[in-house]
C-alpha cells in the first residue's frame, strides 16, 4: 500500500517528502504529554530552580553589559541602593532603607543605607563601597554601556572623559549616608529607575582589585545568591548567600542552576519533560505551539504585550520624506495586519510608540494613519512625487527585519515608488541610520523603564547623528527640546504621563516622523513547579528574575 502511494510521488521529490514527514513527526509528537499538577501561590523555601539559556552570560560584572543574560545574573549576585519589585517596574528600596529624600530644587538625592549590610564575603558594606561602585561605573576605563544615562550626575561627564578620578557629585556623608548631586533636575521617577538598574549595583572593591579584568568571572557583591560554579558556555550555578540582608526571608530557592548554550527547541523538550523549569529566551513558534494546544499547560503560560514598538522612522530633514505629505503617504501605505501575518509574529498592530502594557503612559486615543493606498497615492500626487520615483532603503538580512522590509517594500511599490531595498548585516544596518536614508527600520522597547528612554533617545538634539544616536528622523528644534525637557523633569507622575502621551501623538501622528508598526506579544511557558513567575516588566521580557521565583515542591 505504502509502495503504491509512494510510487506516484516523482522520484526527485521522494527525499523531500520523507524529510517533511520526519520533521513533522517531531513536532506532532510533542503534543502528546501533560504536565504534572498545579503550583501553589505562596512562596515555598528551599529547592533548586533549573533553567536554560541559548547564550552564555557575557558579563557578570554589572557596568560593561547590555543584555538579558548579564542583567539576570546581576540581580542574583548584587544589590543596589534601589531595585525593581518582583515582576514590576515599580522601584523599591534595596540596600537603602527607604527611597531617597530629594532636595527642594530637585538636585540632591540622599540615600540612607540599612544597618549591618555585608558583602557575601562577610565584609561590611558601607557608603564608601557605594561611592566606589558608582565612581567605577562612571570611570572611563570601565566601559559601562549605560554610562551616558547618568551624565546628569555632577562630575560624571568629566569622569567619563578621563578628566577626573572620582565623581564630584557623589558624596559620602557618613558610613550609612550617601548623597548624589545632579547638574540639572530629573523627574524623580526617572532617576530612581536609573538608580535601580544593575549598572549601579555595589561591587566588592577587594574582589575587583584582586581579580582585575577577570572580576566578571569571579563576581562578588551583596546579592541574594553567590556564584557557586561557572563553566563558560555550559553552566552557571548560584547558591544562597548566607550574608544577604534579606536572608532568610528572601530569596526562596536555595540554588539556581542555569544550563548555557541550550537551543530553544531542545530547551522546550527539556521543559516539557520536567528537566528544567524555564527557558529564559523566547520559544520559537513551532516549539511553543504544542504547549498552547494542550489545555493542561494553560495555567503555566504567561503572555504580555511588549512595552515598545517595531517601527519605521523617516528622515524629516532632507530628501523625499522631508515633505510631511510623503511621510503620511508612507504611513497610509503600510498594511500592518499583512505585515504581522508575513512575519508570522504573535503581535498587535501599533499606533503609538508606547504599548498598552505601559499603563498610564499609553494613550488609547492616539489617531492613526489607517491602511489606505488610494489616499496614499493622492498625498504623493499632492506632494508632486511622480510615479516611479526611486526610494532606497535598508534593513537587516535576518528575521524578522528582512521579512518586514519586504512586506513594506510591496506596500511602497503599490503606491508607485520604485524601491531599492538593501538587506545587510547587523552593523551595516545599524550604520545605515546615520546616512540620511529615507526609511529606517528598528524597534524600541523600554529596557530602561521610562518614556524618557525612548523620547530623549529618539528626538533630542543630543541624540542627533553623527555624534550620537538615535534621532532617526533628524528632527530637532527648540520647541521639541523644550517639550522633552519639560517631560524629563516633571515630578508629578500623572502630569508627566500626559506630556509623554502628547509627545507620542506628536511624533507618530501630527508630524508622522515614526510609524509604529506593531507591539510584539511575548509568550512564556514555565514548569508547573515554578512559582512566582510573571513576564518581567523591566530589562525586556526575557530577562528572568530568578531571585523572585520558587519551586513549589521545595526540591
Amino acid at each position, binding site marked *: 500500500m505504502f509502495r503504491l502511494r509512494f510510487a506516484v510521488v516523482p522520484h526527485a521529490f521522494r527525499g523531500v517528502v520523507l524529510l517533511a514527514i520526519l520533521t513533522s513527526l517531531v513536532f506532532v509528537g510533542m503534543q502528546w504529554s501533560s504536565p504534572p499538577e498545579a503550583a501553589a501561590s505562596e512562596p515555598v523555601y528551599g529547592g533548586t530552580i533549573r533553567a536554560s539559556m541559548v547564550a552564555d552570560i557575557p558579563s557578570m560584572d554589572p557596568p560593561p553589559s547590555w543584555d538579558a543574560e548579564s542583567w539576570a545574573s546581576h540581580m542574583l549576585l548584587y544589590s543596589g541602593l534601589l531595585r525593581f519589585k518582583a515582576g514590576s517596574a515599580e522601584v523599591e528600596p534595596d540596600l537603602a532603607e527607604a527611597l531617597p529624600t530629594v532636595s527642594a530644587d530637585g538636585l540632591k538625592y540622599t540615600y540612607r543605607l540599612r544597618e549591618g549590610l555585608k558583602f557575601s564575603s562577610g565584609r561590611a558594606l558601607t557608603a564608601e563601597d557605594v561611592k566606589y561602585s558608582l565612581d567605577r561605573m562612571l570611570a572611563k576605563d570601565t566601559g559601562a554601556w549605560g554610562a551616558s544615562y547618568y551624565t546628569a550626575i555632577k562630575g560624571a561627564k568629566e569622569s567619563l572623559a578621563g578628566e577626573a578620578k572620582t565623581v564630584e557629585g557623589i558624596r559620602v556623608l557618613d558610613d550609612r549616608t550617601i548623597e548624589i548631586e545632579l547638574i540639572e533636575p530629573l523627574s524623580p521617577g526617572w532617576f530612581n529607575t536609573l538608580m535601580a538598574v544593575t549598572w549601579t549595583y555595589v561591587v566588592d572593591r577587594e574582589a575587583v582589585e584582586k581579580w582585575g579584568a577577570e572580576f566578571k568571572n569571579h563576581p562578588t557583591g551583596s546579592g541574594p545568591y553567590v556564584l557557586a560554579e561557572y563553566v563558560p558556555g555550559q553552566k552557571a550555578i548560584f547558591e544562597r548567600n548566607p550574608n544577604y540582608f534579606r536572608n532568610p526571608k528572601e530569596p526562596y530557592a536555595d540554588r539556581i542552576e542555569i544550563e548555557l548554550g541550550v537551543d530553544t527547541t531542545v530547551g522546550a523538550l527539556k521543559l516539557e519533560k520536567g528537566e528544567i523549569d524555564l527557558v529564559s529566551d523566547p520559544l520559537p513558534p513551532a516549539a511553543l505551539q504544542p504547549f498552547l494546544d494542550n489545555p493542561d499547560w494553560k495555567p503555566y503560560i504567561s503572555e504580555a504585550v511588549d512595552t515598545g514598538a517595531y517601527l519605521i522612522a523617516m528622515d524629516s530633514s532632507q530628501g523625499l520624506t522631508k515633505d510631511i505629505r510623503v511621510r503620511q503617504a508612507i504611513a497610509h501605505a503600510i498594511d500592518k495586519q499583512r505585515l504581522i501575518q508575513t512575519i508570522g509574529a504573535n503581535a498587535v498592530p501599533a499606533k503609538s510608540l508606547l504599548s498598552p502594557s505601559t499603563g498610564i503612559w499609553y494613550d488609547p486615543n492616539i489617531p492613526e494613519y489607517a491602511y489606505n493606498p488610494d489616499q496614499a497615492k493622492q498625498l504623493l500626487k499632492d506632494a508632486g512625487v511622480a510615479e516611479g520615483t526611486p526610494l532606497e532603503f535598508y534593513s537587516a538580512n535576518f528575521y524578522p527585519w528582512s521579512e518586514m522590509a519586504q512586506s513594506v517594500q510591496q506596500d511602497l511599490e503599490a503606491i508607485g515608488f520604485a524601491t531599492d531595498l538593501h538587506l545587510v548585516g547587523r552593523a551595516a544596518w545599524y550604520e545605515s541610520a546615520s546616512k540620511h536614508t529615507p526609511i529606517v527600520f528598528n524597534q524600541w522597547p523600554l529596557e530602561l523603564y521610562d518614556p524618557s528612554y525612548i523620547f530623549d533617545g529618539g528626538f533630542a538634539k543630543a541624540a542627533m547623528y553623527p*555624534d550620537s*544616536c538615535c534621532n532617526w528622523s533628524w528632527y530637532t528644534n527648540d520647541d521639541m527640546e523644550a517639550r522633552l525637557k519639560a517631560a524629563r523633569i516633571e515630578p508629578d507622575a500623572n502630569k508627566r504621563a500626559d506630556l509623554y502621551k502628547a509627545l507620542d501623538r506628536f511624533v507618530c501622528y501630527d508630524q508622522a516622523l515614526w510609524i509604529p508598526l506593531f507591539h510584539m506579544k511575548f509568550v512564556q511557558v514555565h514548569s508547573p513547579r515554578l512559582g512566582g513567575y510573571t513576564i518581567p516588566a523591566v530589562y525586556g521580557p526575557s530577562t528572568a528574575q530568578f531571585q523572585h521565583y520558587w519551586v513549589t515542591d521545595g526540591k
Partner: protein
Amino acid sequence: MHRYIIRRVLWMLFILFGISLITFVLTVLLPSDPARVIAGPRASAEAVATLREQWGLNQPVYVQYIRYMGRLIQGDWGRSFYTRREVLDSILERLPATLQLALVGALAQLVVGIPVGLISALKQHSIWDRLAMVFSLLGVCTPSFVLGLLLLFYLGFRLPIFPIGGYGQPQHVVLPAATIGLAGGAWYARFLRSSVLEVVNADYVRTARAKGLPERAVVVWHIMRNAIGPVITMVGSDLGYFLGGVLVIERVFAWPGIGLQAWNAIEFEDVPMIMGTVIFSAFFIVCANLLVDIAQAFVDPRVRYG
C-alpha cells in the same frame, strides 16, 4: 621522503596563513563594524568610538591583521568581543568535549558504515542491498539537525532513555554520536560498497576462493584489506574535521564544544572568536590531511615522487 614531508609541512603553514588572511579580510571587509555590533543598535557614536579605541578597531585593516598575527604567533589569540574572555582559553576548555564527540562519532560512523556497506556489496541486488541503499540514501539526504532532533525527541523525550542534550556523563554522548554515526555511516556505506564491488571480482579474490579459503577469510584478508583504503582516508579527514567542532550537531545537542563556540561567534559577529575557531579547526583539518598524505606516501611510492 623527508623532503616530501618538509614540503607538505611548508604547504600546510602557507595554507593556514592563507586561511587566516581570508577569514580576517572577510570579517573586516564585510560592511560590518564590530564596534557597532558590540555597542548595539542604539549606542551613541561616542560609545562606538570608545569601543573602537578600546579594541584597536580604529587602525587600518592591514595594521590590525599584522598585529593580530604578531600576537597569534606569540600565543595571544585575543579576547572575545562578546564574552570578553581569552579566545584560546575559551577554545581549549572546550577541546575535551569536542575531542570526545569526534572520537565516539568517528567510531560510530565505522560501526554503522562498514557492516552496511559490506553486506550490501557482498549481497549485491538482494533485498539487503536495497534496504542498505535506502538507509544510506536517507542518511545522506537527512540534514543532521533533523536527524538529531528526531533522535532527541524519540530517544530522549518519548522514551526517556538518554538525556535531552547536555554534557558530562557517558550517556550524554550517545545521541550526538549516533547522529554523526548515522549520517556519516551512510556515506561510508556507499563508499565501501563501491570499493568492495571493485575488488570483489578481482583475480586475487577468485584465486583465494579457488584455493579453498573459507569465505570469512576471503572477505577479511583479501576483499576488505584492499577495499578499506578510501574509508580509512575518510576517517582521517573526518576526525580532523570533527576536531574543529561539529557545528550543527553541537548546537542541537547543546554540546559545549568548539562548534557551538563558533556558532555563537558567528551569530554575534565576534571577530576574534571567529578567527580563533576557524584557525583552530583549519589546523586540525590540515594536520589530518597531512597525516593521511604521509601515510599514503609510505604505502604508495607513486605519491612521494608524483
